[in-house]
């Protein structure tokens, strides 16, 4: 009886078959959706570049995610910055114009929201229950989550690549289309020719009609996969509601503080108290209003040098030395493939160097500073 099966066992087989078919159908839906071919849209690289560069007036709102694979340790006082390139950052963004936008960096049970209202910015930190109003332009500041949304990062990288000296030889190639956040996007590859940069190429996919960057990937030299990706998971190319762009108001449970950027710059100069040369590692310094911090280089081969005061500087130096390699008695370099970080002890402070440049450049800078 057992070998030939019974009515009951054949019913059982039929029922399990129903289960199997249902599970396969349910499980195959996301796979089939992901495998849908993207539209084979293509565009002349010059037109696409111009369209991307001119997309700053395009309103949008959406949900974006960046993923950095750079093994950068958390530097004391800079963990919010290092986590941007070494982990996942989830962002909600609403953009009406360059003077009116909002980006929320969403974490488990908290968020940090940045509002641009005219020429002032308002930061809401849910963990501290604190609103900070920053009045005035910020010519120098630390990187933040809002810099990683695809339109902002895409536009910045494109601007850096196109500011290269004429004849530098950067290549712009058209990529195969890709579906990003449900949109058939067109792609552009930027291959920098600048000597000294760690960037092999930058891929930017954009909405074909407006040129709004939807996905940006950065691949380091010698690598086959991108080490930094930011992309929209959801995007809507319509203007956000005005109420969403209005920052919260101080009240019970919402503390408030106002900061003037001129005070911040003065404090930075006071704390950093140092002097930076006009030329480092063979690269010219660019104008910055902070004496203790400087940006060197052009295009994608650029790095920033900042002088940190005593305690914080020494802790940062120890971290770089622990995870990196020594470059002399008082210097250490931490290469991550794409971003290279260096630290140099000089007098009572520490110079922190970071940029998308090869370790040899940072070592040269370290020698000049020590």
């Amino acid at each position, binding site marked *: 009886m057992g070998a030939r099966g019974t009515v009951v066992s054949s019913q059982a087989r039929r029922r399990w078959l129903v289960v199997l078919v249902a*599970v396969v159908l349910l499980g195959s839906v996301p796979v089939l959706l992901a495998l849908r071919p993207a539209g084979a849209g293509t565009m002349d690289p010059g037109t696409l570049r111009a369209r991307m560069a001119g997309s700053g007036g395009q309103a949008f709102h959406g949900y974006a995610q960046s993923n950095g694979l750079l093994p950068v340790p958390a530097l004391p006082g800079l963990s919010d910055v290092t986590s941007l390139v070494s982990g996942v950052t989830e962002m909600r963004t609403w953009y009406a114009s360059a003077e009116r936008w909002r980006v929320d960096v969403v974490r488990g049970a908290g968020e940090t929201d940045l509002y641009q209202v005219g020429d002032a910015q308002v930061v809401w930190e849910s963990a501290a229950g604190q609103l900070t109003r920053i009045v005035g332009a910020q010519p120098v500041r630390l990187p933040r989550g809002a810099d990683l949304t695809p339109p902002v990062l895409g536009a910045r990288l494109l601007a850096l690549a196109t500011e290269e000296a004429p004849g530098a030889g950067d290549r712009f190639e058209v990529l195969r289309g890709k579906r990003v956040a449900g949109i058939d996007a067109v792609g552009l590859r930027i291959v920098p020719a600048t000597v000294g940069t760690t960037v092999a190429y930058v891929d930017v996919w954009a909405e074909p009609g407006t040129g709004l960057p939807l996905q940006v990937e950065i691949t380091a030299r010698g690598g086959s996969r991108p080490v930094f990706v930011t992309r929209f998971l959801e995007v809507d190319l319509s203007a956000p509601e005005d109420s969403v762009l209005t920052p*919260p108001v101080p009240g019970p449970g919402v503390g408030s503080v106002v900061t003037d950027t001129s005070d911040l710059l003065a404090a930075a100069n006071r704390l950093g108290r140092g002097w930076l040369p006009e030329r480092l590692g063979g690269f010219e310094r660019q104008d910055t209003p902070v004496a203790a911090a400087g940006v060197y280089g052009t295009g994608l081969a650029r790095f920033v040098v900042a002088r940190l005061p005593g305690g914080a500087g020494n802790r940062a130096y120890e971290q770089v030395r622990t995870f990196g390699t020594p470059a002399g008695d008082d210097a250490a370099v931490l290469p991550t493939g794409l971003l290279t970080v260096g630290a140099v002890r000089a007098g009572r402070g520490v110079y922190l160097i970071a940029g998308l440049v090869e370790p040899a450049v940072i070592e040269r800078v370290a020698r000049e500073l020590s």
Partner: protein
Amino acid sequence: MITVELAKLFRRPRTYVITGLLCALPFIVAVFLATTRVPPPPGQGGAFLSAVLSNGALYPAAAMALVMPVFLPVSVAVLAGDAVAGEATAGTLRYLLVRPVGRTRLLVAKLVSLVVFVLFAIVAVLVTAYVTGLALFGSEPSAGVALPADVTSLSGVTITPAGLALRMAGTVAYIVISMLSVAAIALFLSTVTDSGLGAAMGALAVLVTSQVLATLDAAAAVRPYLPTRYWLAWIDFFRDPVLWRDIERGAGIQLVYLGALLLAAWAAFVTRDVAN
């Protein structure tokens, strides 16, 4: 059949013991917080715990964050694992099925009973947490009106009492759906084993595995499909505007698990040989 199962649920002392334990954890945490007034450091500790010190009206949300990751799923897994296997172990399953009761109907009745338990437990936790929050942390009445004070959302925007009630209702609905998939895993295992403990442990093993994989970068490809991936998405009800993305995905994935596992439970139970 459903009435019988519900009567059985509320007749058993274990229902009240489990619910009492679920309510006890937030109460103990509230006592410590109110006594010491030491909140978790910003960005650390349970969700909303820092905020409740200034307004106890938000404590139900903090209580949900406390019981959701472990206590509530364990309770549901224990009850669901015992649903069919417990009857088999006690020898009552055979007598239950001798009556003119369809096996599918019995499964549905068991599931309805579990849904009611989850609702009962969550509402009990919310009510006791609300009372505890107001009693221990207080709530400043707004402009002399005898209503609970407004609370601040994670985005810094004020949530009115009506808005808070709506968001709490959404939270309850989402958590019930999330717990249904736990119930479905345990119920399915309960139909293939005679050991209620074994079914509960099996369900917990699935959940622990899912939790571990959810934090593993190497498992990023399967993360969106893990049953526990979106469990804490209800927190997004307290952002402004509400972030629906994970809530929608979480509810969807739970319903898929619920459907598939109930179908498997039905296939296993309908043709199962009930010998003992």
